[in-house]
C-alpha cells in the first residue's frame, strides 16, 4: 500500500451516492499528511478534556454535537482542549453540514498545518460514505494476469496462459453486448473479507486491448460506452487451458472453486480447442451462475429428476412384475 494522503482523499474519484464533497478551508500546508487507518474518531471526549485512548491517528469528524460544544467552548473562551487536539499528529478534521469553523479555530489549524475540511453531508451520511471509501483504499490488493468481463451481470475473471486466447474471447463477448472492465492486468481488491472488486490497474490505460495481429485498440471508441465498465464484483473465475486429452474435465457440474486474496468464488475450467466456441461457453457458465444465485442448481436438479425417475421405474417394475407373477399363477 502506497501512502494515502489528504490530497488523495480529496482526489478520490467517487461518484453519485459515494461522493464525499469535501472542501479544504484551512491548513492547506498539511494536505500531504498521511491517513494510516480507516478509523473515524468523533472527538467529543477529547474536547471535554479526556485524552486517554484518543485515536490521534484517525480522521477527526465533527458532527452537530461536537460543533455545538465547540461553539460553547469558544464562548467561554476556553480553547485549551482544542489546541491540545491539534497538537497531536492528526491527519485532518472534517466538519459536517457545511459548518465553517470560526477564524480562531482556522488559525490554530493553520499554525499546526492540519487541514480543515468541510462537507455538506450530515455526519451519518458522511460516515457511511467515508467508511466504504476508506475500506476500498485500505483493502488488500493483488494484480492478476487475466481479463475481467461482465457477462449477464456476472463479473467473470478469465485467466489462462499467454496466447490461449483470453483477449480474443473477451472481444467476442463484447461483440455480443457484454462489457469489458480490464484486459491483461486486473487489480483485485478484498472488500471487508466478503467480496472481490476487480478493476483496471490504471484508469488512464483501461479499456484498451492488445490483440495479436492488430495491435492496441480503444474499446470505447470502437464499441462505444456501452461496452465498458470501471469496476465490477468478481463472481466467477473462468480458466482457459489447452485441451489435454489426459485430463478429466468436469462433465456433470461439480463445484470447483478458486481463491483470490482469501475469498473463494466458483470456478469453471474450459478446455480450448479449435472449433470450440469459448464465448458461448462462458455465457452459459454465467447464466448458470445466475441460476445458482436464485437457488436453482442445474446439476443437482437434474440428478434429483434422475433419482426420481429411477425410483418410479423401480416401483413400476415391482408392481408389474408382481402382476405378471399373479397372471402366471392364474394361468396355471
Amino acid at each position, binding site marked *: *500500500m*502506497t501512502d494515502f494522503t489528504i490530497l488523495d482523499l480529496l482526489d478520490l474519484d467517487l461518484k453519485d451516492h459515494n461522493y464525499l464533497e469535501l472542501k479544504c478551508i484551512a491548513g492547506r500546508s498539511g494536505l500531504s499528511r498521511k491517513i494510516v487507518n480507516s478509523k473515524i474518531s468523533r472527538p467529543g471526549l477529547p474536547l471535554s478534556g479526556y485524552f486517554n485512548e484518543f485515536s490521534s491517528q484517525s480522521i477527526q469528524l465533527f458532527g452537530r454535537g461536537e460543533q455545538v460544544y465547540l461553539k460553547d467552548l469558544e464562548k467561554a473562551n476556553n480553547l485549551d482542549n482544542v489546541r491540545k487536539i491539534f497538537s497531536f499528529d492528526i491527519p485532518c478534521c472534517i466538519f459536517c453540514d457545511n459548518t465553517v469553523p470560526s477564524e480562531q479555530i482556522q488559525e490554530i489549524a493553520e499554525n499546526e498545518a492540519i487541514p480543515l475540511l468541510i462537507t455538506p453531508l450530515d455526519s451519518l451520511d458522511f460516515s457511511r460514505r467515508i467508511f466504504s471509501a476508506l475500506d476500498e483504499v485500505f483493502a488488500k*490488493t493483488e*494484480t492478476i*494476469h487475466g481479463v475481467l468481463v461482465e457477462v449477464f451481470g456476472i463479473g467473470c475473471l478469465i485467466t489462462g496462459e*499467454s496466447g490461449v486466447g483470453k483477449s480474443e474471447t473477451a472481444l467476442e463477448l463484447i461483440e455480443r453486448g457484454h462489457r469489458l472492465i480490464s*484486459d*491483461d*492486468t486486473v487489480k483485485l481488491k478484498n472488500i471487508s473479507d466478503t467480496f472481490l472488486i476487480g478493476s*483496471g*490497474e*490504471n484508469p488512464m*490505460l483501461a479499456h*484498451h*486491448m*492488445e490483440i495479436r495481429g492488430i495491435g*492496441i485498440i480503444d474499446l470505447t471508441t470502437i464499441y462505444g460506452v456501452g461496452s465498458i465498465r470501471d469496476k465490477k464484483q468478481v463472481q466467477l473465475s473462468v480458466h482457459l487451458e489447452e485441451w489435454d486429452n489426459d485430463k478429466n474435465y468436469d462433465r456433470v457440474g461439480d463445484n470447483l472453486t478458486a481463491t483470490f486474496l482469501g475469498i473463494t468464488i466458483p470456478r469453471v475450467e474450459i478446455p480450448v480447442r479449435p472449433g470450440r466456441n469459448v464465448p458461448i461457453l462462458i455465457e452459459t457458465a454465467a447464466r448458470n451462475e445466475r441460476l445458482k444465485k436464485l437457488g436453482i442448481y442445474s446439476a443437482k436438479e437434474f440428478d434429483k429428476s434422475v433419482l426420481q425417475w429411477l425410483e418410479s421405474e423401480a416401483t413400476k417394475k415391482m408392481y408389474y412384475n408382481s402382476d405378471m407373477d399373479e397372471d402366471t399363477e392364474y394361468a396355471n
Partner: protein
Amino acid sequence: MLTETLTVKTRAGIHARPASQIVKTAQKFKSDIFLIKGNMRINGKSIMGVITLGATFNTEIEVQCTGPDEQEMLQAIKKLFENHFEEE
C-alpha cells in the same frame, strides 16, 4: 528462479514501443517472466501489462525469470535495458 533489478535508462520511460520490445524478447523464451515495480507484479509477456507499470526514467524494475531457459531470458532482457530498448 532468477531475479535482477534493472533501471530504465530511456528518457521517455517504457511506453508502447519499448514495451513491445520487452514482450517480443520475452516471448522468444519458454520461461515465465514477471516485472515488479513497487506493489505491482505483472506478466512480462503482456504488452498492456508492461505499459501499465508506468515505468518512467530511472525507475527500478525487478525482473523475475522462472523456467528452463531463465538464464538466457534474463540476459536478453538485461541487454535490452542496457541498449535503451534499441531506440535512442
